[in-house]
C-alpha cells in the first residue's frame, strides 16, 4: 500500500474514530437530538443517548456474531437511522463498513460481495435481501448473517442466515450483560490506520474498486469540516443547532461526509428523508440549515421552479417573472463580486425578498439554509447563479473518494462560479505540468484499493501524490476549474483536444435535457446522444397539444427533435467551431442503473452507452 499518511502513534486509549466521537456526544449532550426519521407521519426523534445505546447494542451484537478486527460488514439499504447506527457500531469494534447502493442490481451485489467478502450483510427489506439470497453460495460463502429491519414479506423465508434487526439488538443486549466492557476494549485498541470503511467507486470505466479509508483519513476530513469555517457565509461552522436532510446514498463519500461525519464531528441533527421521491416535501418540513446536493438535484429544483412558476395564475406569474429577472441580475452581480452584494443587487434583493424570494425559498425548503453545496459532478454555473440570485448561499466544491473528498472548495466572499474553488489551506495540491491533472497529497489520501494493489499503484505518482484523474486549470492563480476526466478528453481526427463534459454540461443547462453524451474521439466532427427530461418535455408537449404515449414516442416526435435542436444550436454558439455538435440523436429510452447505462451515482457509463447505442452513433457519421 503506497501511502503518504503520517501515522499517529498508538496511545492505548484508542485512536479517535467516528464511533468515539459519537460516544463523546452521548456523554456531552445526551438529550440533544441526533437523528430524526419520519414514521407514520411524525418525525421520530433519536437523542444522542438513545442513538449511542443503539450503537452500543449493535456493536455487541456484531461481537456476538463474531466480527473480528478488520472484518467487513455490508450495508445494503436506503438512508435510515439503522444505516448510521450499524456503520458506527462496526467502526467501534474495528470492523470495516461497506456501503452498497440500494439500486445495485443483483449482478453488482454479487460482484461486490465476492470482492469484499463480508461476514455480516445488512439488507433492509425483502427487496434487498432477495438480491443477496440469490447470490451464489460459493461467492457468498463468507456471509454468516443477513440482517433485515423491515419484517414485511419475510414470513416464509427459512434461510438460517436471516436475522431480524430487533433480535440482533437483543443478541447485543445479552452480550452486553455478559461482557459489558467488550466494546470499550475494542474502541480503546483502535489504531489511527485501521481501515474503517471501503467506499466503492462508481466504476464508470471498469468494475467498482473499493477505496480503503482509515480512521486517520476520516479524522482529517472531519477536522476540515469543523475548522474551515470561512467557507460558510456567517463564519460559523456546523454546530448542534444545524439541521441536515440526509437523502443521498450514504455509501457515497459525499453523503457520508455531509451526514455521518458531520454528525459525529459537529453534532447537528440528521433528518432522514422518507425516500428520494419525497425529498422536496421533506425539505419543506425540515427547512435544513446546511444542504448538500448533487448537480442533478440542483437542476431538478431549478426546473421545478420554472415549471411551477409558469403554471401559476396570471397575477402570481407577474410577480414570479419579476422575481426571476431580479434573481438573474442579483446572481450575475454576486457572481462577479465573489458572492458579495453590490448596491444594485442589495436594492433588488430588498424588493424581491419579501415579494417572491422568501416564499420561493420556503417552498423549496431552503429558506433557513445558511450553507449549501454542490459537488460530486460538474454543475452548470447558470443553475448556481439562479440559486445565488434568490439568496441561497451555494458553493461548488470538489473532492473524491480517494482523498476523503478533501481537495478544493469555494470560500464565502471569494466564490467563483464555474470553478470548484481554492485548495484547502495547508494541503498538498498541484497540477501536473504535462497533463494538467490534479494531484493531492495530504492525510486524507486513501490507503489503497481493496485487493487491487496494481490499481492502487496506478493512481499514485512515484513521489506519493494521488492522481485524481481530473484535468484542471488555474483560474486567476487561486481557483481551480475542472476541465474533464482525463480519460474523457476527446482527440478528434483533426488532432484537436476537446473536453466533452463542458459541452455536455452546457447542454444539460436546458431544463429539457437530462442526459447528454458528446462523441468524437477519432471522428471528423463532434456528435451527441441526448436524453430528454420526460417531465419537462412532457409538460411542454402537453402545452403544445402534442399527444404522446411513451418516452420513446415522445423523443421521436419531430417537434421534440426541433426543440432539442434549438438547445444544441444555443450551446454551439458558446463554443468554438471545432467544438460544435454537428449532429445529435435522441436516446429512445430512459437511462437506468439497472440496465447498466448509468452508475449508481447516475453517471454515464460511456463504454456501455457506445455498445448500446452504437447504431445510433454510427448513423450520425454516415
Amino acid at each position, binding site marked *: 500500500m503506497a501511502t503518504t499518511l503520517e501515522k499517529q502513534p498508538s496511545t492505548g486509549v484508542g485512536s479517535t474514530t467516528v464511533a468515539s466521537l459519537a460516544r463523546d456526544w452521548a456523554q456531552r449532550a445526551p438529550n440533544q437530538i441526533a437523528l430524526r426519521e419520519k414514521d407514520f407521519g411524525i418525525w421520530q426523534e433519536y437523542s444522542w443517548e438513545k442513538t449511542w445505546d443503539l450503537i452500543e447494542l449493535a456493536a455487541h451484537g456484531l461481537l456476538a456474531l463474531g466480527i473480528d478486527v478488520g472484518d467487513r460488514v455490508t450495508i445494503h439499504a436506503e438512508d435510515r437511522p439503522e444505516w448510521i447506527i450499524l456503520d458506527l457500531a462496526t467502526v467501534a469494534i474495528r470492523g470495516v463498513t461497506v456501503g452498497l447502493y440500494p439500486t445495485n442490481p443483483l449482478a453488482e451485489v454479487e460482484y461486490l460481495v465476492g470482492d469484499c467478502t463480508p461476514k455480516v450483510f445488512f439488507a433492509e427489506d425483502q427487496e434487498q435481501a432477495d438480491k443477496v439470497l440469490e447470490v451464489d453460495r460459493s461467492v457468498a460463502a463468507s456471509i454468516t448473517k443477513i440482517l433485515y429491519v423491515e419484517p414485511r414479506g419475510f414470513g416464509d423465508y427459512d434461510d438460517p442466515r436471516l436475522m431480524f434487526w430487533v433480535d440482533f439488538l437483543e443478541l447485543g443486549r445479552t452480550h452486553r450483560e455478559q461482557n459489558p466492557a467488550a466494546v470499550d476494549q475494542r474502541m480503546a485498541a483502535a489504531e489511527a490506520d485501521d481501515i474503517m470503511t471501503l467506499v466503492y467507486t462508481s466504476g464508470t470505466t471498469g468494475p467498482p474498486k473499493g477505496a480503503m479509508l482509515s480512521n486517520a483519513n476520516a479524522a482529517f476530513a472531519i477536522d476540515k469540516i469543523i475548522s474551515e469555517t470561512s467557507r460558510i457565509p456567517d463564519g460559523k461552522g456546523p454546530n448542534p443547532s444545524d439541521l441536515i436532510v440526509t437523502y443521498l446514498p450514504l455509501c457515497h463519500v459525499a453523503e457520508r461526509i455531509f451526514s455521518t461525519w458531520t454528525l459525529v464531528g459537529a453534532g447537528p441533527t440528521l433528518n432522514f428523508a422518507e425516500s428520494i421521491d419525497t425529498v422536496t416535501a421533506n425539505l419543506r418540513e425540515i427547512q435544513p440549515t446546511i444542504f448538500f446536493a448533487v448537480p442533478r438535484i440542483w437542476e431538478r429544483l431549478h426546473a421545478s421552479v420554472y415549471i411551477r412558476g409558469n*403554471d401559476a395564475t396570471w397575477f402570481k406569474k407577474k410577480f414570479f417573472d419579476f422575481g426571476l429577472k431580479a434573481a438573474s441580475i442579483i446572481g450575475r452581480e454576486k457572481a462577479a463580486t465573489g458572492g458579495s452584494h453590490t448596491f444594485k443587487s442589495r436594492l433588488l434583493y430588498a424588493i424581491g425578498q419579501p415579494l417572491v424570494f422568501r416564499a420561493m425559498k420556503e417552498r423549496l425548503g431552503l429558506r433557513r439554509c445558511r450553507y449549501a453545496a454542490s459537488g460530486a459532478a460538474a454543475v452548470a454555473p447558470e443553475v448556481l447563479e439562479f440559486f445565488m440570485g434568490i439568496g441561497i448561499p451555494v458553493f461548488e466544491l470538489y473532492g473524491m473518494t480517494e482523498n476523503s473528498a478533501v481537495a478544493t472548495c469555494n470560500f464565502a466572499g471569494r466564490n467563483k462560479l464555474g470553478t470548484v474553488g481554492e485548495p484547502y489551506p495547508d494541503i498538498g495540491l498541484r497540477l501536473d505540468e504535462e497533463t494538467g491533472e490534479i494531484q493531492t497529497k495530504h492525510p486524507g489520501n486513501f490507503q489503497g484499493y481493496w485487493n487491487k494493489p496494481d490499481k492502487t499503484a496506478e493512481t499514485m505518482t512515484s513521489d506519493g501524490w494521488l492522481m485524481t484523474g481530473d484535468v484542471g486549470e488555474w483560474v486567476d492563480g487561486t481557483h481551480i476549474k475542472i476541465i474533464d476526466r482525463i480519460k474523457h478528453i476527446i482527440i478528434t481526427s483533426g488532432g484537436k483536444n476537446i473536453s466533452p463534459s463542458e459541452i455536455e454540461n452546457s447542454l444539460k443547462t436546458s431544463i429539457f435535457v437530462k442526459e447528454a453524451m458528446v462523441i468524437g474521439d477519432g471522428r471528423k466532427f463532434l456528435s451527441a446522444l441526448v436524453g430528454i427530461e420526460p417531465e419537462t418535455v412532457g409538460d411542454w408537449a402537453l402545452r403544445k397539444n402534442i399527444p404522446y404515449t411513451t418516452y420513446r414516442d415522445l423523443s421521436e416526435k419531430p417537434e421534440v427533435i426541433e426543440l432539442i435542436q434549438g438547445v444544441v444550436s444555443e450551446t454551439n454558439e458558446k463554443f468554438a467551431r471545432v467544438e460544435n455538435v454537428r449532429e445529435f440523436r435522441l436516446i429512445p429510452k430512459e437511462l437506468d442503473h439497472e440496465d447498466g447505462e448509468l452508475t449508481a451515482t447516475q453517471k454515464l457509463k460511456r463504454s456501455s452507452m457506445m455498445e448500446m447505442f452504437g447504431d445510433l452513433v454510427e448513423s450520425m457519421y454516415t
Partner: protein
Amino acid sequence: MYGRPNLYTSYKQESQILPTWSQKIVLGIFLLILLAMPLDLWLTEQIPFVRFLGDNEWLPLINKVLVFAIATLGLNLLAGVAGQVSLGHAFFMGVGAVTAVFLGGQSSDNLHGLGLPIWIWLPGAGVAAALAGVIVSPVAVRLRGLYLAIVTLGLVFLGIHFGNTTWGAKFAGAPGLGRKAPKLDIRLWKEETPLINLDDDGRWLGFDVSDKAKTYFLLLGLTVIFAVMAKNIIRTRTGRALQAIRDRDIAAEVMGIPEFRYKVIAFGISSFYAGVAGALFSAALSGQVLAADFGLFFSVEFIAVLLIGGAGTTAGPLVGAFFVVMIPKFVETFTKWLDKTEGGITGKFADVALTGPEGDFGVIYTGVQTPGWQLNVFDWNIVLFGFLIIVFLIFEPLGLYGVWIRVRNYWKRWPFSY
C-alpha cells in the same frame, strides 16, 4: 422548532388547534375584542364594525348569533362531520326548551315547574335532548340521506303536536301562548336574591354593563366552551370515526368502526348542543317558551347557517351564524341609509332601486306592506338566502370557511399555484 411549522415530532404537536404563535396571538386579540365590545372603552370605539356591534341596539342580534352558533355547532357534528342530514334539529331544541322551563320555571295551577337554578336546568335541557337523540338514533342506522331527513322531519311535527296536547301544555304552556321562560340569573339554590343578577343593568369591575351585555357575556362564554368541545370532538378519535362514517359508512365499518355506536354518539352529542341552544333561545332571546317556535323553518334555518358557513368545520357554524343573523339587519340598515341619501351616485342608485309608498319603479319597496311585484326588505332577505344557499351549494360546498381556505391556500402557495 422555530420557523418550521410543518416539522411535527409528535402527534400531540400535529393535532394542535393553533400550531403557531401568530395564530395564538391573533385569536387572543380577537377574543379580547369580543370581551371588550359591549364595554364603554375608547379602544373599541376606534374599530369599525365593533364600534356599533356593542351598542344596545345591536347586542340582541349578537346574542342571537351566539345561540345560533351553539345550535349549529351541534348540527354540524351530526350533519357536517358524521354526514347524517337531520331536519329534526328544531325538535331537539324544543325538547331542551321545554325541559329547561320545567326544571327552572315556576309552577302554577296548570303548569309544572320545579324552580331550580340555571346550573341544573341548562345542563338538564341538554341531557334531556341528548336522551331524545339517542332514542331516535337507531333510525339512522337503517336509513340514509333523504330518508333520514324525512324521518327527522316527522319529529318536528310530533314535537309541535305534543305541545298542543293538554298533557303537553302542562309543560310547554298553552298552545299559541306559551309560558314564561326561566330566568338566566345565577343562583346557588332557590334563594330570593340571585348570586349574579342578569336581569338589570349594573356595574361590573368598574364598567357599566346593561342586562343585554350581561347576557352577551354568559352566551359568549358558553359559545367558546361549546366551540372548543366541538373542535376537540372533531380532531380526536370520535371525530375521526364520525368522518369515516360520513365518507363511506360501509368502508368505515370494515375498518372496525362500529357504525351503530358512533351514530348514537353523534345524535346524542348533537342533540345535547341543540337542547342547550333551545333552552338559551327561550331564556335569553325570546323570553318565552312556545312550542310553535320550534318548527320546520327553524330546522331549515340551521341547515342554511351550516351550508353558508361551511359544513364539517368548527369555524363554519360560527361564521355562518354571524352571516345569516346579521345580514338582514345590515341590508335593512343599508336600505334605510340609501333611502335618506340624496344626489351623487348613491342617490341615483337609490332612485333606481327603491320604491316608496308613493310609487316608483325600484324593486325594493321601503314601506311595510308590499304593493305588488316589488318586494320589501324582509322578503328580499329571504330571496337573498335562497339564492346564497344555491350559490354556495354549487360553487363552494365548504361555505364561507371554504372561501377562506381558498384565500389562504392562494397565499400559502405563493408564488406558485401548486
